[in-house]
């Protein structure tokens, strides 16, 4: 057995200096040629276990028990000199953000060959030759000269592959991948995944693949270990985990990605929001070209596209933060002023916005009561007991207990903060809520709860949503209509069933095919389809 972790326990300290258990007795084994996926939500301890395979714990944490053995050699409590010899040479690490892991001041090749040199593995020329070979294998352009570039001269996906080269340059026995594709676009993600998988197989190395995305790990791993709150939930073959999960938690994880909600009742609807032929620009750079769309009452329109497609700019135009160059936005039959300052209080109230990052969307120094209560006081003139009662009602509607009113955002989880943002929008009693990637910063299970909440609120109050997202699973789950954007233009639009089913528009089809599916052979099929 190459890597054997037994009853591993790691403790850390929180901000108040109290000891907390991060990993609570996890055991796992990986043999040569195998890939083990570690999956779980944030806080599950999966990265901590990944790092423990290098005999490393983050500052403030320590091994509280158990053992980590590499080829029978104990790493827990091993002398630092011994660990330094192993790290990088026998066990390599690929971090989540390659952009943060490379030194911007040195050429890629110098940084990649440094590992080789530090471990005294032979002349540099040899390392360079091998690096060029790996560049080629990982599908990087112009392998001969790629290493001469600086980190800022290559794309995020290329940098992530360069880091994989850095990990593989010493021909390690074990590679730990810590969410290596999370920061990448779906279309780039495929190439990186395929390249990593090929490289690992050819070297006969073993790998630990840490991620929160079940569909991604399905392409990479032979076996999957599901983690929650620092403990193992289920360990099994990838196919078994996906098709016959034994534990409730695993079943929940799997069904989130497969989840779908159906549209209810189909009677005549009036148009709430109409965007007509809008052009918009930041300075000299035009971002939106002739964009039109409409949102009906009690309906959800999803705007999808890759990053840079202009979908968030569209939200800024609708809310009045960015006056369009031409075209107009009509709301409930009235033309909205292009400029935020020219809009009436009533218009502002009826059109609310929820942000992607709940952490920065609420003031960390206001209590929940102040955050939710402000729109009530501002728009509806509520105060005193009426306001307190209404805040309590709103908390109940977003399924949070009433005593949360006196908490600060810092005391809430990401999902709870997003609920507070929803309550703040609801407080204004709006007709339309623009949701700008509201679930993309959340764990899958939490994101699913938020989507369900939004759907329920829509049924209760007849709200309309303009849902901006790059996640097609979300679109499938909640949209009635879909607008696909590419480079500032609407390239495809219509009912969900029409847009998201064959025959696809070219670009829509590419987006849909790029989303990892929960089948173990999905990646192979896509790659085969591309040739």
């Amino acid at each position: 057995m190459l890597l054997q972790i037994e009853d591993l326990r790691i403790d850390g300290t929180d901000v108040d200096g109290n000891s907390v258990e991060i990993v609570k007795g996890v055991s796992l084994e990986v043999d040569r040629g195998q890939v083990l996926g570690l999956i779980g939500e944030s806080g599950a301890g999966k990265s901590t276990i990944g790092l423990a395979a290098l005999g490393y714990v983050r500052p403030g944490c320590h091994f509280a028990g158990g053992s980590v053995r590499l080829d029978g050699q104990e790493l827990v409590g091993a002398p630092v000199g011994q660990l330094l010899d192993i790290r990088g040479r026998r066990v390599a690490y690929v971090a989540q953000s390659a952009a943060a892991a490379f030194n911007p001041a040195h050429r890629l090749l110098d940084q990649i060959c440094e590992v080789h040199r530090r471990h005294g593995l032979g002349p540099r020329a040899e390392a360079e030759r091998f690096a060029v070979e790996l560049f080629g294998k990982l599908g990087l352009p112009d392998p001969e000269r790629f290493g001469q570039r600086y980190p800022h001269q290559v794309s995020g996906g290329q940098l992530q592959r360069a880091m994989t080269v850095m990990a593989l340059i010493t021909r390690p026995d074990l590679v730990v991948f810590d969410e290596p594709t999370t920061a990448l676009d779906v279309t780039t993600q495929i190439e990186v995944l395929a390249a990593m998988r090929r490289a690992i197989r050819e070297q006969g190395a073993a790998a630990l693949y840490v991620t929160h995305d079940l569909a991604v790990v399905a392409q990479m791993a032979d076996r999957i270990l599901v983690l929650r709150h620092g403990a193992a939930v289920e360990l099994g073959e990838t196919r078994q985990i996906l098709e016959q999960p034994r534990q409730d938690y695993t079943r929940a994880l799997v069904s989130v990605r497969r989840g779908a909600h159906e549209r209810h009742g189909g009677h005549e609807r009036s148009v709430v929001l109409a965007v007509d032929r809008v052009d918009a620009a930041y300075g000299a750079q035009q971002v939106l070209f002739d964009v039109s769309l409409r949102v009906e009452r009690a309906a959800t329109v999803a705007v999808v596209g890759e990053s840079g497609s202009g979908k968030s700019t569209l939200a800024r135009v609708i809310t009045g933060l960015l006056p369009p160059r031409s075209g107009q936005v009509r709301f409930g039959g009235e033309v909205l002023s292009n400029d935020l300052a020219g809009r009436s209080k009533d218009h502002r109230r009826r059109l609310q916005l929820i942000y992607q990052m709940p952490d920065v969307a609420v003031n960390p120094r206001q209590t929940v009561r102040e955050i939710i209560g402000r729109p009530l006081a501002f728009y509806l003139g509520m105060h005193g007991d009426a306001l307190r009662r209404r805040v309590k009602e709103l908390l109940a509607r977003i399924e949070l207990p009433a005593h949360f009113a006196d908490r600060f955002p810092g005391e809430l989880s990401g999902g709870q903060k997003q609920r507070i943002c929803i309550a703040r929008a609801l407080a204004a009693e709006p007709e339309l809520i623009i949701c700008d990637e509201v679930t993309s910063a959340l764990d899958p299970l939490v994101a699913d709860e938020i989507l369900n909440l939004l759907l329920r609120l829509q049924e209760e109050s007849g709200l309309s949503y303009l849902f901006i997202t790059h996640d097609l699973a979300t679109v499938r789950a909640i949209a009635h209509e879909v607008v696909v954007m590419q480079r500032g233009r609407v390239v495809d639009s219509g009912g969900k069933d029409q847009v998201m089913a064959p025959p696809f528009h070219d670009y829509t089809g590419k987006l849909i095919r790029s989303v990892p599916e929960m089948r173990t052979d999905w990646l192979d099929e896509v790659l085969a389809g591309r040739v």
Partner: protein
Amino acid sequence: MSVALLLRRMPWITRLGLLLVFLFAFLAAFGPWLAPYPEAEPVADVWQPIGTVGFPLGTDTLGRDMLSRLLYGAQRSIGLALVITVLSFTVGSVCGFLAAIAGGWADQAASRVVDVFMSFPALILALLVLSVMGSSLPVLVLTLAFIDGTRVFRLARAVAVDLNVMEFVEAAKLRGEGIWWIARKEILPNALPMLLAEFGVRFCFSFLLISALSFLGLGIQPPAADWGGMVKDNAQAIAFGLPAPLLPAGCIALLTISVNLVVDFLLDQASRRSRRG
């Protein structure tokens, strides 16, 4: 957070700092009543050493009681520094916040005016104004508060510019909140830790600036006692191996250190809270 909890969390060094700050505040408030002699009257021989009967801290260059002058000086020096710092922070941070939120030409105009004043060294600018306008107490306070205020403006504006692009501020703007509400409710609470840290430093700087001006004869006018002026008056004593100027100098140093001990702790608390959120 309750005061009791805050006290319990304090390390001993912060408690010491707090104790000294309170002690200085007490002396500043009641100094003139505690002083055994008048501040301006020679009561004994020149430069009596420390421990002389009746004059526990000795006498100064004119034979005035050192202890009495330190007590009188405490009120004047600390009081002045406090007034100047509070004034400069109120004006500086309000203007800084408003400039950052308003942006555009208002921000440009305010920032460039401040740049002009900041390009003069503080001491030179103070000397210039004081020698033209004459060194009266109101002129001194307003001049120093203005000079300090330009520095505070820069800091407040820089902090507010960062906060101004946060989404919770954008949400407030979308809601239609006025600029004053945004400054007070959204920006100020988040800028407070940084302003607090600066307050500790600025308080001591304005203290030192008054001392320096007094030393140059343009600050507080004799025979009124202030700590900076006392260092100057007794400076020659060093040549005779007498510690007289070290007493007021020591007071200045001690106050500076204790204020910063307290500020350090408050900063630490603030960053803990924001790290949690």
